[in-house]
């Protein structure tokens, strides 16, 4: 199918709410893209520990699925692992921390930031440079970093951190300060890699976990995250935020942090979880391209017919809401979170989603 706009033209138009030939589309297909290389047998552990493999997967995935965007999301144990947590690295499962570096309250203050160029943080920085360079004339690219609170919960355990926010508040702040300093260096490193944007994973901004005051204190726009967000701009990158929480802090993360793009999920069984039409209707897409919200498990479990129907329904919901709001293009049809990188994910479902948006994503108000 020949399209009227290039990927870059479409994304830039969407960022400015200009007319587009169709809505932008981005299944967050990162780890799973390794399966589009060669005979499709690259192991996850080989993909996530070698910058060339990591970049090659993302480059190959962009071409295979014909994606409008490319984001360098790796698993969420990268920073915790580099800070000394033990990461269980199976051949194909998503790696995860099985022995956190923070075991007791005294450990928060002992954290030592490693060299950003070592470990898997180094893989991300070097790999981002490779894919950002290779795709600079094809798509809008974005690096991906874990936010400080996420890096901390991965390095301790979320339950312990949440209790210690109350019982050992200053120690938690000390640790968050250490992670934030490390992340400042990572942002500068990311700036050298020259992706168009830098996307933060700030997933604890969820009303299921933290209220506004707690989030403001332990990550927020006026605390650790605010300085990091500002630095992203200073380093020449657009700010993007990913948060797959059930009840995201949209006022903080969209209205206060002002990202260019925000990717989010939708949980129909959680009262108050915002659907695409609600997010658009309440003005969150007025100044930010909101991306969402197809259930990531659909890429593993659904038939192609169900994926097509779900994508069509979402396109229709989004188009209706955009027109009602007087917007032209400020929504990207995306997965609510990363497409599972497992070997059972159906690549044809990713293609079906993209093809369905090409066919049904035209906005005519």
């Amino acid at each position, binding site marked *: 199918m020949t399209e009227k706009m290039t990927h870059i033209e479409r994304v830039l138009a969407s960022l400015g709410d200009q007319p587009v030939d169709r809505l932008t589309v981005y299944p967050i297909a990162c780890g799973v893209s390794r399966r589009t290389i060669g005979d499709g047998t690259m192991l996850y552990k080989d993909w996530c520990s070698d910058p060339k493999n990591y970049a090659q997967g993302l480059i190959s995935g962009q071409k295979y699925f014909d994606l409008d965007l490319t984001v360098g999301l790796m*698993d*969420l*144990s990268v920073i915790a692992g580099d800070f000394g947590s033990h990461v*269980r690295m199976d051949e194909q*499962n*998503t*790696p*995860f*921390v*099985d*022995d*956190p570096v923070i075991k007791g309250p005294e450990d928060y203050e002992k954290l030592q930031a490693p060299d950003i160029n070592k470990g898997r943080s180094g893989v991300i920085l070097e790999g981002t440079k490779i894919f950002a360079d290779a795709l600079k004339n094809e798509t809008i690219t974005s690096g991906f970093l874990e936010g400080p609170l996420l890096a901390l919960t991965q390095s*301790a*355990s*979320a*339950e*312990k951190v*949440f*209790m210690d*926010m*109350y*019982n050992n508040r200053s120690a938690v702040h000390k640790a968050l300060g250490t992670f934030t300093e490390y992340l400042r260096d990572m942002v500068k490193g990311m700036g050298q890699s020259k992706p168009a944007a830098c996307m933060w994973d700030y*997933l604890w901004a969820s*009303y*299921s*976990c*933290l*209220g506004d005051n707690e989030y403001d204190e332990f990550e927020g726009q006026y605390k650790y995250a605010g300085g990091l967000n500002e630095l992203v701009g200073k380093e020449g990158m657009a700010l993007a935020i990913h948060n*797959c929480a*059930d009840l995201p802090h949209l006022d903080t993360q969209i209205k206060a942090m002002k990202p260019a793009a925000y990717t989010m*999920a939708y*949980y*129909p*069984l*959680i009262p108050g979880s915002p*659907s695409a039409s609600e997010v658009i209707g309440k003005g969150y897409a007025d100044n930010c391209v909101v991306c969402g919200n197809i*259930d*990531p*498990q659909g890429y*593993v*479990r659904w038939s192609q017919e169900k994926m097509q129907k779900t994508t069509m329904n979402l396109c229709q919901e989004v188009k209706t809401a955009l027109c009602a709001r007087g917007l032209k293009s400020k929504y990207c049809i995306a997965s*609510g*979170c*990363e*497409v*599972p*990188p*497992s070997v*059972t994910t159906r690549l044809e479902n990713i293609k079906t989603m993209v093809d369905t948006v090409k066919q049904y994503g035209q906005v005519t108000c």
Partner: protein
Amino acid sequence: MKIAQVAGFLGSGKTTFLIELAKILVDRGHRIAIIVNDVGEINVDAKFIEMYGLKAKEISGGCICCQVAGNFANTIAILYNTFKPDIVIVEPSGVAIPWGLKRAAEYSEEEMDDVIVHAPVITLVDSLRIEELMQSVRRLVETQIREADVVFINKVDSATKEKIDLSVQFSKAINPNAEIMFGSGRNNQGVKEAATLIETRTSPRYDESYEKEMLKRDYGGGA
């Protein structure tokens, strides 16, 4: 195969409770497996597992919508295919959302020849620390109570009447439909009743609830 979730925040007495629960269910002739969803440690003592002929598995990592769901489903399928438990007791992390684990459990049906049935979701509330929990991790505790079929007010053998009453008030304000039980895992108080409840009752499946909600959204009236 029945999935029995025992939720609750760190320190609520989940591990002690589920060990006592497993003993009772084994004594009643059930074949029991345990899955813990935590970072870094399996809290269930290995000797206990051996003594009672149980099977324990750990599941961890990632977020439930994209990564943990697949791992959890696979773990359940492996347990079924290798151990054939009739009840799997799941101890989720205090930041897990029970419906997410229900959904993931149902996905395991693709890898086994049995149907998943859910026992009522039991959320333990630590009555001894209720004031602290309401201050510190209130939203997480509220989320788990909101998702519960049964709220088990735990440690009532050590807590004052005021704290027990406060635990009940707090729970009912969040989830007036939940059944309230009282007990103490440590002294085996109320655990037999909880075991009977797991044996005899069920909780709605995720897929049915999801379809109903989507129909309601699309057509306004519900299923």
